[in-house]
């Protein structure tokens, strides 16, 4: 912007520096070309053919501009339904994939049962029953028994998701489910399922946006946490801080929370965990510490005696 030192001595009017671009833009928005053209016209009138040609050309340009406006308008209007269509398509795809997952899960369950039957046929009776017990304890096998059902539901009539009120404590949070599940484990539960999703040692209960995911599968309210355990489980759960908290939240926010005894509950098997880093130990007497931590490639401590088969669940 500034003149080099050598220019200082010259006539200052010889060099005119334009003000910076934005200042110029705000001061004189009209293209300076119009003024220049007008000045040129004053000096010499343009040639005859140019005068004849100029008018039609600018009219053609105006037609083009109008065309452009119409096309842009139509394009913008046409964009809207396509966006809604894309959204609907995505929703349909999600629904379809979910149905597919359900179908495949069902098939996997059938196959697993089939494998279990075949294995029972192939193994000796004591080994087979030991395996079944291990499976039941770790959540990989279906279990039956008496226990309790804890029911949690969102407060009614508070579904204003737009203003963010939906995230408030009047809804069941994933942490509520976590606390209830942990309190049930602590109260002696041997198997827990949330809305039919069996909890294992590696099951996660977490939130993704507005939804709660149990083992990466979305569950929706009302939430039923079913647990199989000893008869004392209900009293111990009712005395736990988690139950206290849920009761007080229910009183203050209208969230419903209830515990009831249930007889002959059947909890489904959890899907087979995908182990990426842990490998089954090949030692002849497998250690029942089932919760495979990452990177435990070394074979388990051989000779550590058998312990309670439900150890992996707690």
């Amino acid at each position: 912007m500034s003149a080099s030192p050598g220019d200082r001595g010259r006539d200052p009017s010889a060099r005119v520096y334009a003000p910076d671009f934005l200042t110029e833009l705000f001061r004189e928005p009209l293209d300076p070309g119009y003024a220049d053209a007008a000045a040129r016209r004053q000096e010499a009138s343009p040639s005859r053919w140019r005068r004849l040609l100029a008018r039609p050309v600018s009219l053609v340009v105006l037609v083009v501009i109008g065309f452009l406006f119409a096309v842009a308008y139509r394009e913008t209007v046409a964009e809207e339904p396509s966006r809604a269509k894309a959204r609907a398509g995505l929703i349909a795809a999600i629904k379809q994939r979910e149905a597919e997952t359900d179908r495949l899960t069902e098939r996997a369950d059938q196959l697993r049962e089939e494998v279990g039957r075949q294995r029972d046929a192939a193994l000796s009776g004591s080994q087979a029953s030991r395996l079944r017990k291990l499976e039941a304890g770790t959540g990989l096998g279906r279990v039956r028994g008496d226990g309790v059902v804890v029911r949690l539901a969102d407060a009614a009539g508070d579904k204003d998701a737009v203003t963010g009120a939906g995230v408030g404590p009047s809804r069941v949070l994933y942490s509520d489910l976590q606390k209830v599940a942990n309190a049930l484990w602590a109260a002696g539960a041997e198997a827990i399922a949330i809305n039919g999703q069996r909890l294992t040692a590696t099951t996660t209960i977490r939130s993704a946006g507005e939804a709660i995911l149990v083992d990466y599968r979305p569950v929706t309210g009302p939430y039923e946490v079913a647990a199989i355990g000893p008869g004392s489980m209900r009293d111990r759960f009712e005395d736990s801080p988690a139950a206290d908290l849920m009761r007080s939240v229910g009183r203050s926010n209208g969230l419903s929370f209830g515990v009831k005894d249930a007889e002959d509950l059947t909890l489904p098997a959890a899907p087979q965990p995908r182990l990426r880093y842990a490998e089954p130990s090949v030692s002849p007497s497998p250690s029942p510490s089932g919760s495979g931590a990452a990177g435990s490639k070394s074979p388990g401590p051989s000779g550590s005696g058998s312990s309670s088969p439900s150890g992996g669940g707690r």
Partner: protein
Amino acid sequence: MIAVLALLAGVVLGVYLDPTVPAALQPYLPIAVVAALDAVFGGVRAKLDRIFDDKQFVVSFISNVLVAALIVYLGDQLGVGGQLSTGVVVVLGVRIFGNVAAIRRHLFRA
């Protein structure tokens, strides 16, 4: 008057023909519209200032659209397409605003 009719003819033509814009050109459409608006308001103001020039109008429209499209294209290639189109819209928007203000002063003397 003829100019307004030509503009309307273009709109009618666009509505009637209902052309489909190729997907590759779609990002440039809004920028082209803003550039065209700039040229139109500049032309109207020049007309009111009695310095309208057909050649200047045609050249300014074409160069506006081309330069705006080029900037957006370059921005897309460099990964700053959004920011550069914002820049184009701001500059052209300021000019449109200034020219409309001048037209208003011409028409209403206020």
